[in-house]
């Protein structure tokens, strides 16, 4: 049969984000897929070298539009490690609660994208609405809905407002009460199973070899989570489980996302119960005179898409000398995507891509 080359994205309707894939197809079977990043390169890492330590805060969160919070965390943790700043215990708990809220929000956003892609618009709209409820919480806590600029080195930028803990609980109850509806309509829906089962399959060996992280890795049976292996913030203060599946296909990946959301909500309740009193911020040095001793650090965390890392170098000046983010979408979007698309049908490109949770801004930066 004749081989064709197709461009999937960035203008293609099925593409989410500024990303493109070149497909070599035979009939509707994909023979070879080549990822084309670069449409969203904004030069963040270079920009960071020209701004002072504090001025980078409003910048780093913009690297990833879907989930800015883990970017903030990475930068804050790296700066704290470089400058030797201690974070008060209460701030650690607030950070964990805040990051888990961000994870739930990000997963709901992902669920919207995925359900929308498969044509499950009802569930997609629910997910978008429930994400909005979480954005309301962020707005109250930080003053911004999407870009929060809330995690500072030394803690957090403001403490919880009066009665905020109860509002987190009630919002999560509202979302949680809809889980049976989500399950009936989507997760236990036979159509979802038919569309996602055995699609974009990845073996454990392949996932490990190609640097899969996050739920892509956990869907192949590997029980790995940075929050467990290298606990940061207050993740070692409460008990929680790592959800795992073994099939390695799109269906498993979305189920891991679902289970993770529920685990995160449970974790927030546990963290809220144990939230200590005290200061939420340890004052950082005067930003106009803030010089950080010469050193280099690498920090990592488990973002909602998997392991996120930051390599940050200081030359003893008032600005970083080099910053480099290691983002989960980088390996997912380039190597794994190409592998997962092989021998799949054209109709499943969006399905597989979103199940791998690829966000273009993370790849390009």
């Amino acid at each position, binding site marked *: 049969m004749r081989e064709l080359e197709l461009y999937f994205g960035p203008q293609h309707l099925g593409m989410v984000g500024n990303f493109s894939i070149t497909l070599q197809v035979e009939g509707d079977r994909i023979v070879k897929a080549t990822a084309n990043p670069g449409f969203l390169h904004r030069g963040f890492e270079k920009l960071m070298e020209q701004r002072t330590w504090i001025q980078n805060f409003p910048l780093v969160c913009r690297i990833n539009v879907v989930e800015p919070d883990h970017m903030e965390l990475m930068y804050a943790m790296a700066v704290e490690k470089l400058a030797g700043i201690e974070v008060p215990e209460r701030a650690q708990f607030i950070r964990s609660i805040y990051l888990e809220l961000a994870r739930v929000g990000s997963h709901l956003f992902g669920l919207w994208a995925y359900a929308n892609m498969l044509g499950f618009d009802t569930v997609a709209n629910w997910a978008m609405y429930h994400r909005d409820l979480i954005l309301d919480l962020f707005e109250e806590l*930080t003053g911004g809905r999407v870009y929060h600029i809330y995690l500072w080195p030394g803690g957090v930028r403001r403490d919880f407002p009066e009665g905020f803990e109860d509002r987190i609980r009630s919002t999560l109850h509202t979302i949680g009460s809809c889980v049976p*509806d989500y399950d009936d309509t989507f997760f236990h829906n036979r159509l979802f199973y038919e569309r996602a089962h055995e699609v974009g399959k990845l073996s454990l060996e392949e996932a490990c070899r190609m640097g899969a992280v996050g739920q892509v890795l956990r869907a192949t049976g590997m029980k790995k989570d940075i929050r467990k292996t290298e606990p940061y913030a207050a993740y070692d203060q409460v008990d929680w489980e790592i959800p795992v599946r073994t099939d390695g296909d799109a269906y498993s990946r979305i189920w891991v996302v679902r289970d993770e959301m529920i685990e995160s909500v449970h974790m927030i309740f546990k963290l809220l119960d144990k939230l200590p009193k005290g200061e939420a911020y340890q004052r950082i040095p*005067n930003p106009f005179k803030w010089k950080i001793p010469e050193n280099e650090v690498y920090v990592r965390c488990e973002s909602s898409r998997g392991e996120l890392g930051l390599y940050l170098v200081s030359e003893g000046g008032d600005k970083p000398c080099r910053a480099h983010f290691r983002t989960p979408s980088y390996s997912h979007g380039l190597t794994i995507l190409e592998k997962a698309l092989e021998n799949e049908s054209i109709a499943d490109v969006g399905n597989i891509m979103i199940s791998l949770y690829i966000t273009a801004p993370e790849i390009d930066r």
Partner: protein
Amino acid sequence: MSQSVLKPFKAIKYLFATPKTLRYPFELKEPALRYRGFHVNDWETCTGCGNCADICPNQAIEMIEIPELVSEPGKTNKRPRIDYGRCCFCGLCIDICPPGSLKLTRDYFHIHFDPETFVFVPKDEQTEPGKYFPSDEYSVLKASLSHRRKDYDGFVSDLKYSLFDPERVPMPVVPPEERILSFIEHIIGYDREEARKEAARCLECRLCEEACPAHLKISDYIHAIFEDKPEESLKKIYEDNPIPSICGRVCMAHCEKACSLSIRGEALSIRWLKRYAADTVKDFKTALELHPGPPTGKKVAVIGAGPGGLSVAYFLRLNGYEVKVYDALPGGGGTMRTGPPAYRLPLESIDRDVDYICSLGVEFFFNTRVGKDVLFEDLLKENDAVFLGTGYTRSRSTQVKNYEKCELALAFLADTKIGKPSKVGREIIVIGGGNVALDVAREAIRLQHIQYPGEKTVVKTVSLEDWDEMPATEEEIREAREEHIQFHPAWGPKEVVVDESGKITGLQCRKVKSVFNEQGRFAPTFHEDKEMFMEGDMIIEAIGQVPDFSFIPEALFNKLEFTERKKLRVDENGMTSISRVFAGGDIVNTNMDAVTAIADAKIAAQGISRYLAGETVSA
């Protein structure tokens, strides 16, 4: 796992639920209380320091001059202007704002055809009425930067989370019970770590530099201390102030009153940091590397080796003039030598500064009283110019009945510091509420502890002014109270009471009605019926000082012009109405402190240089 094709139809029940979508603009969603929307700025409290513009990561803020505002010490006439094409609403400007005048509101709508309107100078409801509306008059259809809601603060400054540190590094001091036993310097001074930590608080907004009469480059020398380069710091100080050891201890610190950190927190310890720089550098000569300029062949005589005289000598010497300084005291420093007690300003500190100026080749003639040991006319004849920095050297007296039994403040202070301390009483009354009175009282209490160890003694002060008007600095009052000096504010002396042998038994006082008249001039009035007798065996008058011009021959003195506040009138070059005679310090300015004398000296030194170079016409 049970998958179903029928169960998903349960979602049909949502068809009958209330829609979640808001029907904008008929249904509005109230932004959260911390919402980061458009700015407001309280122009009254905004100091125009420009920290917001400095920290803005997007260079969205520019400080623009507002012609209708007047710059004053601690406040410029600049205000931030925000370009909403660049602003990312991160709120860094809010967290760095020292007065907390800049705030973000919950307004976030601006719709306009003209892109210029997105460049915006934020004001507030008070400064810009007619643009802010209560919620019942507000319409979202008109929402813009000129149609906003009243009382709609969102993200505002919180001192606990501010990016600047409102708290000073505490200065170690000798505790009161220990320090009153001797004349030991009670401010211990910062060590290296403390000084660097304190210097790191400086935001470098330079409001202080405008407020300093001598315009020292404060931000620069503080920055050098932060960088652990005290020599660099001292070099910067010496550009404008040649007596850092003295000023680092007794400066009136006009700068600290203007410090932007002082608005809601504690001002930067600028004075103590200057002292740190001066005390840390052991060898001024090698650190400063200053040399007199090429000789001009011109000679200048300076009368009085106080801050003004020392400074004018230093500046002129650096310009290559031959300078001779005459002073009646046995050492340099003038009033600084005799006035400020040793626990605040030890003689060694004064001598360090004077010795350095001397090492530059300035000739000093101590124990030489002009008018007696050397004549003013002769100085005028022998030199190309003369600088008068004679200061206020005579104490004023209350002139109440038996006043001649009292001691005078300046003589008491001078005897205690550089002469033989007088025998003090057990119950001392000090008349006056200024810094000199408190210096006298605090010296007296130390002398009592030395002369009557273990015995019951007391020092009281009587002042016309009440607590809130007392001219002494807050710091001085606090330290005096720590040392258990008794205060009797709002009482005026009526009569010094003596017994038959002529010994003082106490002071008869009257209650003060008011100290100043409606024009704000000093004109005390008293309640004639409220009197009090205060027991005491020694009374010291510390109610002010007057200058002594007796060294100037009468013919010349008559040519001198004075202002209505009885100050010598000088022109913009510091020259008096007598040609070739320049003046500065207490006899010229009304601030009457060391740093203002230095400022005068700078003007006079430049004036003398210009005059002797023939650039100005003689008066």
